[in-house]
């Protein structure tokens, strides 16, 4: 079975994000970029499915600027077989990303598409579900376990009340949550090998998709910052302050 994994290049999760002084966005100049952590989990899951003999081929796709090829190469080093780069320097919002991925799905016809549940830049949590709707596929969002059984996949989902398991017809879309797996690191020999794996590049126009954004960002501001308060000497003082100063207990 063919598995398609979508990965996004985002600001590294360790980087302290700063809003630009002109309030047009966050400062990405000379900032370390990386694969979105949830996408790493998606790649890892696909690789494990291949190691189990469930997946036969893993195709990894990324939408973004030229530099997004770094993240595709990372996925190839982790075990994906070939890459597709939908190259654009324009901002691509979730609906348009889903439309681009739909075109790729129509060409590649994967049985399973795995994406991260959200990217840590826009924090939208939309693309996987939109792709599923546009392609008429079932979806297993916020997955903490994925078990393929014949023509179905059982997905255990992290939901507000606990865990919920659904059975989905294949082909299906799965979006990853944090507990699905712990991604491995790429080894040096595999990083070298990944350089030779096929990587095809195309434009949104090649896929026939209009990527003009529907949402415009009017401004981006820093959040209201909290002031550090006081240190209390002991528990008795803490309880006294909570009761008599803050009046919250």
């Amino acid at each position, binding site marked *: 079975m063919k598995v398609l994994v979508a990965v996004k290049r985002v600001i590294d999760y360790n980087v302290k994000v700063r809003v630009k002084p002109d309030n047009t966005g966050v400062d990405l100049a000379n900032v370390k970029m990386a694969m979105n952590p949830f996408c790493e989990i998606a790649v890892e899951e696909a690789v494990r499915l291949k190691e189990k003999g469930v997946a036969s081929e893993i195709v990894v796709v990324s939408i973004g600027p030229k530099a997004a090829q770094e993240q595709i190469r990372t996925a190839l080093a982790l075990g994906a077989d070939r890459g597709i780069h939908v190259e654009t320097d324009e901002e691509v919002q979730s609906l348009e990303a889903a439309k681009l991925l739909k075109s790729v799905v129509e060409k590649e016809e994967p049985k399973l598409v795995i994406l991260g549940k959200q990217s840590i830049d826009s924090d939208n949590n939309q693309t996987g579900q939109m792709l599923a709707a546009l392609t008429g596929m079932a979806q297993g969002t916020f997955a903490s376990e994925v078990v393929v059984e014949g023509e179905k996949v059982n997905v255990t989902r992290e939901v507000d009340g606990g865990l919920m398991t659904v059975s989905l017809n294949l082909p299906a879309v799965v979006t990853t949550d*944090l507990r699905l797996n712990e991604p491995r690191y790429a080894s040096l020999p595999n990083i070298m090998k990944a350089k030779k794996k096929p990587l095809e590049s195309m434009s949104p126009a090649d896929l026939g998709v209009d990527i003009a954004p529907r949402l415009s960002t009017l401004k981006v501001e820093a959040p209201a910052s909290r002031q550090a308060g006081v240190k209390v000497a002991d528990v008795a003082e803490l309880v006294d302050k909570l009761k008599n100063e803050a009046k919250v207990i």
Partner: protein
Amino acid sequence: MSILVIAEHDNSSLKQATLNVVAAAKAIGGDIDVLVAGENCGAVAEAAAKAEGVNKVLVADNAAYGHFLGENLGELVAEVGKGYSHILAAAGTVGKDFMPRVAALLDVAQVSDIMRVESEDTFVRPIYAGNAIATVKSSDSIKVITVRPTAFDPVAGEGGSAAVEQLDVVKDAGLSQFVSEELAKSDRPDLASAGIVVSGGRGMQNGDNFKMLEQVADLMGAAVGASRAAVDAGFVPNDMQVGQTGKIVAPQLYIAVGISGAIQHLAGMSDSKVIVAINKDEEAPIFQVADYGLVADLFEAVPQLEEELKKVL
């Protein structure tokens, strides 16, 4: 303008988050209808009809919606919602699951997790784990929006008397089936709407030690939460995770115990009114956001806290 709010519920009771979402709808302005989709959910519809400011309650009661499967809810809400100017749902795991499907089926963008309404088409939402706050304007004819419940004070749950109307639209996409669920059972208040939250992190060392926090929580009628590290380590279940990619809480009092204060954790709790941190490392970043910081070993401080609370409560 006409706004459709999708109720959040468990087929027997209406979740408070729905009242927060109705408040967001009021901030947009216009007639507000509430859609209750579920199975044997009549009691929920009655509760929704009593909420302040609701014009009409639409009920889609069918086995296809009993487990809130995104494929079925997506089709239903896209069908019912296409006559409205705005479709709103709480940004919980149900809303996050089906709302993007609604947006895609209607060929419109979704605005996720709004914290403020600027106007009928302009909304404020957090990005980058809340390190930046974006004001976004939608050019679509229908605005599909998920709402951060803690950012809007709930409307009154009593006093309204909206008409209740049964819908006979059945959308069963036939793509997915419910298999099973393991729901955390707790007599404590719901984490996302509790007035006081006591959370533990990696410093708790194991799941058994969370009992200490539970005892403190029970004295105050608080909910118990956790950091990702505590959940990943298996101390506590996933539904207790507070943060960027877990639950968003904004209680009157948040007590962080053995939590360092990573930005992803802060994203889920920094709107709390009063924050207390108990951590043995005085350099821990959590102290930068704490109103009251106690540098101490939690294994001494938490039992003392229980004793002190017993004296005053």
